[in-house]
Structure formats: structure tokens, C-alpha cells
């Protein structure tokens, strides 16, 4: 082992390890953050490719290209790849890069576990995606894995279950690392209520992850034993109940959707003040609102299942508690708006994405309120309206916030400024096409088009064609994102330490660009 000699001579400074070992054996938070982000981008493109195949099939009524089984596999893996491979690793990558920089630490608290939690992911997705090549094809029961349908799959069944176990283990380790880093590695003077909001939202997200990923592990373990070992958790003949799976799953699933959005709130809360040249309005309220959302996320889960035949009192409770979430979320939206009020605004790419986030995420929030009304939900349940709703909060919500974060911090990471023109083209094409893609799906859903079908009645054709055209345009626009990053990393002009001339606030901007290999070797003074 090499540790003996590295302990012996106390080599103090930055020398980066070379070659492939730098990545395989990495303990540096920046290297691991980069791997997370590159992996997330690859999964985003793969999941996006699957989505474009879905839109291709839905361009016209009738079966065009795929048989229904393969179509269902595409829908299921698109969701799993985007959630567990795209958005979550992207947030962990951003946390890896930014949390130590923002709190004045040299690295994450548990660097080897950090590496472990990353490297599990490519193997987990190999396991998941390899099922496409087994008998029976890929997982086709939907990402929610409801029994009895999910139990009827072929070899994809155990592969999906075990892949989810691995993804869960990775998430739990990543979350423990973020919490411990924030609680234990802050520079002297960085009190909790001075913590940048990105760190705050991630701290709460990490808590949610540790609380609910094990519940998902338990739920899929019960599926596994029901399938192979004769248990009857979800089998009424033995006294179980398939609806019980939905309860356990959504006890995980609802906090999970906040896991996918809270770090996005954090990113937006960093960007809007910078480009408004004003401090964030109502910092404390933002922290408390985030914590309230996290608390509420544990008591709203059954709004995903209003139509399963719950007792009336249950439906009332889950309807009311769900609507309560609008209060802290409203606090956030108003605080972002008020931050911009009479600010000296400028519209660089991070700000553009943050603004699009503000408007389009709100649309997704409002359609969420519509879905929260139990009697109305009887009509909306499992229609394209639901698809439109969660894509509005996830794509121009979570994904746009990730892109905003990348455009905001990329110069800090690489020391180079990307092409503004390219980034703005990416922004406008994405923002227009994402609305062409998802807005018509509201109409389709209200008119009664069900989700998760490869074929539909002819009266839905027009809006499906519009939606598909938007989908192809959105997919192709993302190549500009890749181009902007690659061009920026290799050919960009040198960036200054502050990057954005005015308004930047936070420790990360006190370091040179690119940030040194070990962020803060000396703990900075916070005033």
C-alpha cells in the first residue's frame, strides 16, 4: 500500500495525480464532482435519446416503430435514467464542487466514501440497462414498479431491483458525506445562518435522502421476496395488499421529488441575487421555507393515489396537506421576485436560465395544485396532464436550474469563460422548444389522453405532433449545451476570480479561477 510512504513524507501541496488513477482512485472533491457531472450529462443525453424515441412513436396514432413492450421499456428506463442517473448525480456533482468552496473547507469530509458513491453509479446503470439485452427486454412496469405488473417482468426484474439497491446505497453515502461536510467542515465564523442557500438546500435534501432511500430499498426488497420467495406483501390471497406497495413507494417517492427540486431552489437563490446586484430578500425565510417543504413532503404521499379507493378522511387529509406546500413554495417564489425588485438586472446565461426556472417551475407548481384537488384528480389521474405537470417541474425546473448552475460556476471550475452567444442560443432554443414540447400535453391530458401508451385515438393527433416537434427541437438544442461546455473548457477566454464583475457574494469567489486543487488549505476568516 502506498499509504505508508505518503504518511512518511508529509507532502503538503497540490500535486495532482496523473493518468487514469487520478479518476479511478480519486479522493479530490473537484475530480469526483467532475466525474459526477460528466456522468450526469451522459445519462441526460441517453435519457433524452429515449425520450425522443418515445416522441417519435407518438408522432402519429397507430403503432409506428416499436412494439408496446419495448415502448413501455423506453418509458420506464427514461424515467429511471433521468431521475437516478441525470438529475440526482448532477446535484451531487454540483455539491461536490461547490459545498467545500462555499463553506471554506479543503475537501469533502469523507473523500473515499465520496469516490465509492460515485463509482457505484456507472455499475448500477450497467446492471439496469443490460436488462434490455435479456429475455423479456428491459424493465417495462413503469419507474414506480407497481405490483402485480412489475412482478411479471423477465430477467429485467432482479436486475432493476438490484440496480435500485445500488443507486440507493450510492445516494445514501453521498448524502451522509454532504451532511457531515456541512456540519463539520465549515470555516470558523461560518455559522449555520450564514451558510449559502445552496448548502442549506443541500443539507435538507441530504436529510431527505437518508430518510427515504432506505424505505425504497425496503419496498423493492418486498417485491423481490414476493417474486422469488413466496411472501405475500402485495398479494391479497395471503392477506397483503398491492396498494400497500404504493403507500410505501410514495412515502419514498414524494420526498424524492423534493430531493429533485430543493438543490435547484438553492442554485436559483445563489444566481438571482448576483445578477440583481442585491442580497437575497428574506434569507431566513428561505431557510425556514425549505425546511417546511421538507417536513411537509413526509405527510403528503397519498396524493399520488387518490383513485385507489382510500377512505374519505385519508383523501381529505392528503389533499389539505398537499395544498399547504403552496405556502412555503410561494414564500420562495415571492422572495426571488422581491430580490429582483428595483435591482440592477443583467441577463447573462445563468440569470436567463434562473428566470425561465422561476416562470416555468411556477407553471408546474400551479398544475400541481390542480392535481392536489382530490375530486378533480379523479379526472386527471394517469393522463398526459400529469406528464405535463411533472415535466414542467423537472425539465424547466430541476434541469434548467442545473444548467443555470453550470453556466454560473463553470468559469470558476475551469478558469475560462464560455461563449455567451452559444449559451444564449442554447437558452432561447431550449426555452421555446421545451414549452412547445410540454405545454400541449396539458391539453391532451385534459381531453383524456392516458399516459404510458404507444398508440392513441386520432383526435389527439395534432397536439401530439406539436409536442413531438418540440421534443426533437429540445433534444437537438442540448447539443449546443455540450458545444458551449466543450468550447468553453478548451477555447474560452480566461475568467477573473470574481467571474461576474458585480454582485457576487460568497467564499467561492475569493479563490482564483480555476479554483486550486485543494480548495481552502487555510480556513478563511468569515465576517
Amino acid at each position, binding site marked *: 500500500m502506498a499509504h505508508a510512504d505518503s*504518511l512518511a513524507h508529509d507532502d503538503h501541496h497540490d500535486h495532482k495525480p496523473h493518468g487514469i488513477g487520478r479518476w479511478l482512485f480519486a479522493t479530490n472533491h473537484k475530480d469526483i464532482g467532475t466525474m459526477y457531472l460528466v456522468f450526469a450529462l451522459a445519462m441526460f443525453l441517453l435519457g433524452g435519446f429515449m425520450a425522443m424515441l418515445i416522441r417519435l412513436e407518438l408522432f402519429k396514432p397507430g403503432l409506428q416503430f416499436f412494439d408496446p413492450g419495448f415502448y413501455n421499456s423506453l418509458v420506464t428506463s427514461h424515467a429511471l435514467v433521468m431521475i437516478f442517473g441525470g438529475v440526482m448525480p448532477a446535484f451531487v456533482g454540483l455539491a461536490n464542487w461547490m459545498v467545500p468552496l462555499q463553506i471554506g473547507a479543503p475537501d469533502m469530509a469523507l473523500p473515499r466514501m465520496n469516490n465509492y458513491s460515485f463509482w457505484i453509479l456507472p455499475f448500477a446503470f450497467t446492471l439496469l440497462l443490460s436488462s434490455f439485452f435479456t429475455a423479456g427486454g428491459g424493465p417495462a412496469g413503469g419507474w414506480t414498479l407497481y405490483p402485480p405488473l412489475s412482478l411479471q417482468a423477465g430477467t429485467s426484474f432482479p436486475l432493476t431491483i438490484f440496480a435500485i439497491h445500488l443507486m440507493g446505497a450510492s445516494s445514501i453515502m453521498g448524502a451522509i458525506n454532504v451532511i457531515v461536510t456541512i*456540519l463539520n467542515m465549515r470555516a470558523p465564523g461560518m455559522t449555520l445562518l450564514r451558510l449559502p442557500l445552496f448548502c442549506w438546500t443541500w443539507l435538507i435534501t441530504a436529510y431527505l435522502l437518508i430518510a427515504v432511500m432506505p424505505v425504497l430499498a425496503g419496498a423493492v426488497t418486498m417485491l423481490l421476496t414476493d417474486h422469488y420467495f*413466496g411472501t405475500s406483501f402485495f398479494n391479497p390471497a395471503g*392477506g397483503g395488499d398491492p396498494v400497500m406497495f404504493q403507500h410505501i413507494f410514495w412515502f419514498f417517492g414524494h420526498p424524492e421529488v423534493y430531493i429533485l427540486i430543493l438543490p435547484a431552489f438553492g442554485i436559483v437563490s445563489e444566481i438571482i441575487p448576483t445578477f440583481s446586484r442585491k442580497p437575497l430578500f428574506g434569507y431566513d425565510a428561505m431557510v425556514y421555507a425549505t425546511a417546511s417543504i421538507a417536513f411537509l413532503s413526509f405527510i403528503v404521499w397519498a396524493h399520488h393515489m387518490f383513485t385507489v379507493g382510500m377512505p374519505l378522511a385519508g383523501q381529505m387529509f392528503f389533499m389539505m396537506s398537499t395544498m399547504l406546500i403552496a405556502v412555503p413554495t410561494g414564500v420562495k417564489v415571492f422572495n426571488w421576485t422581491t430580490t429582483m425588485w428595483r435591482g440592477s438586472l443583467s441577463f447573462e446565461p445563468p440569470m436567463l436560465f434562473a428566470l425561465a426556472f422561476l416562470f416555468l417551475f411556477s407553471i408546474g407548481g400551479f398544475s400541481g395544485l390542480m392535481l392536489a384537488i382530490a375530486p378533480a384528480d379523479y379526472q386527471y389521474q394517469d393522463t398526459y396532464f400529469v406528464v405535463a405537470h411533472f415535466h414542467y417541474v423537472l425539465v424547466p425546473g430541476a434541469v434548467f436550474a442545473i444548467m443555470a448552475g453550470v453556466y454560473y460556476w463553470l468559469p470558476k471550475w475551469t478558469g475560462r469563460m464560455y461563449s455567451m452567444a452559444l449559451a444564449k442560443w442554447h437558452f432561447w432554443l431550449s426555452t421555446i422548444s421545451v414549452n412547445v414540447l410540454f405545454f400541449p400535453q396539458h391539453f391532451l391530458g385534459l381531453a383524456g389522453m392516458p399516459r404510458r401508451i404507444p398508440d392513441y385515438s386520432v383526435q389527439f393527433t395534432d397536439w401530439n405532433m406539436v409536442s413531438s416537434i418540440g421534443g426533437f427541437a429540445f433534444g437537438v438544442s442540448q447539443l449546443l449545451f455540450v458545444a458551449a461546455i466543450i468550447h468553453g473548457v478548451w477555447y474560452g477566454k480566461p475568467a477573473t476570480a470574481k467571474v461576474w464583475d458585480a454582485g457576487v457574494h460568497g467564499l467561492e469567489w475569493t479563490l482564483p479561477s480555476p479554483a486550486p486543487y485543494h480548495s481552502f488549505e*487555510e480556513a478563511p476568516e468569515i465576517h
Partner: protein
Amino acid sequence: MAQAETTTSEGKYYVPHASPWPIFGSVSLFVLMAGAALTLEDSGAGPSLLTLGLVLVFALFFGWFRTVINESEAGAYNLNVDRSFRMGMSWFIFSEVMFFAAFFGSLFYARQLALPWLSGAGSKHLTSELLWNHFEAHWPSNGPGLLGPRADGSFKTIPAMGVPALNTLLLLSSGVTVTIAHHALRANNRRVLKVFLALTFLLGFLFVFLQAREYHEAYTELGLQLGTGIYGSTFFLLTGFHGLHVTIGAIMLLVIWLRVMKGHFTPDRHFAFEGVAWYWHFVDVVWLGLYIFVYWL
């Protein structure tokens, strides 16, 4: 290898050097999971892959912990690292609590909601009428289909006052012995530490042994198996995962006992000991929940 140690007003930051174990661990988990999936699907390569995966995971634990123990004994870890380890362990135990919560949740749901609904409680009259007419909810239950190994669908449960009560006593005593060992470690009384730590893991292994005998009896004589409806499902998954955790905890206790025998740990620096003790108390508390809700009520 890159290793940065920097001085701050609080002491030193420590960044460990690069390590091959995480990537080794990822490969091991991949082999293990692929092997398990193929075994379940009766594929030829499954069992050998599964065995290889188990060997690799064992090597992973051995190798990674060896590295960390050596570094710890060489004095590489400062108080800041110690605090990170403590926090990490606490949050890990919280995640384990939530894992058990899923199974306790399914026990309560099935017993309090699913079974009564199957027999027509609340607004579910028609469900009962059309699907499982004449079914009366009761606990323990193997459901309206009377699932299980016996043709008449009968089965017996393990009485709470027999071996489970003894097992409760064993685990609670082991909680006391590990605390005595901890106090002895802090007082630098190594002789008492060795004896009571050994007593703790022996009690743990004895618990697992008695549990295994109970399982044998349940399978061969009581008609209580994994397939015995919802009672068998919740009983075996709850007690089974608990038993697995006791086994892991006892092995962890054995490892730190071996470290004590080699002279590791000082009265004020012994994170590994405390981490294992916390874990042991955690399996203790889970058992109390099991004893009350699975065996007793």
C-alpha cells in the same frame, strides 16, 4: 499520492490519500448483484458469479478496514476526522432505522388496514362480498387464501414468552456488557474491557444461534414459513433482517475485540469502539420493537 494536511485555528484538516478500495468495492458490488440476479433467474453463471461477488466483498471489507485501521494506528486522524466519522456513523444508523421502518410500516398496514378491508370493514363491503366472501380478519393471519405449507392452511406462531423472551434478555444483557466494556476502556482497565467485550459478542452469537433454532422449528413443525401469508412474510423479513444485523454487529464486536487484544484504542480515542457500540444498541432497540409488535401483541 496527494495528501494535504493544513493547519487552521481549529487544528488540522486531513485529506486522505487516494485509494483503490472504492473502485474495487464498486466492481465487487456489481459482480455480487449480477450474480444474485442471475442466480434468482436460474441462469448457469449465476451461482459462481455470486460466490465470486461474496469473496470480493469480503476482501473489500478486509482490505479497506485494514487500510483505515493502519492509518488510524499511525496517528493520521485528528479530532476533526474523528468527528466526521462519528457524524457519518450516526447518520448511517438513522438510514438503517428507516430501512426497518418500511417493514414495520407494512406490518402495521397489513394488520390494521389491509386485513380488515379484506373482510369488509369500512367502505369495503363489496370487496369482501365479491372477492373473499366469509373471510374474517384476525391476527395472526395467512390471508383469505390460507397460504402456507399445510394443506388445511393452519400454522402456529412462536409464543412470546418462550425463546423470544430469553433472546430479549440476552440482547439487553449484551447492551449492559458493552457499556461496562466501554467504561473499562475509558478507565484504561484493559482486563475488564477484554472480558466484557468478549461476553458481548458471545451473547450476540448465542442470540443468532437461538434464532436459527427457532426458524428451524417454525419451518419444520409450526407450518410457519416465508410463504405463510402476510404473517410469515412480515415475521421472517423483520426478524430475518434483524438477525442479519445482529450477525453483522457481532462480527463487528469480534473485530474490535481482536483490535483490543492487539492493544488498539486509548481511553480518549476509540471511535471504532463507540461506532460499533452504537450499532449494537441500535439492533437492541429494533429487537424491542420486534418483540413487542411481532411476538407479543
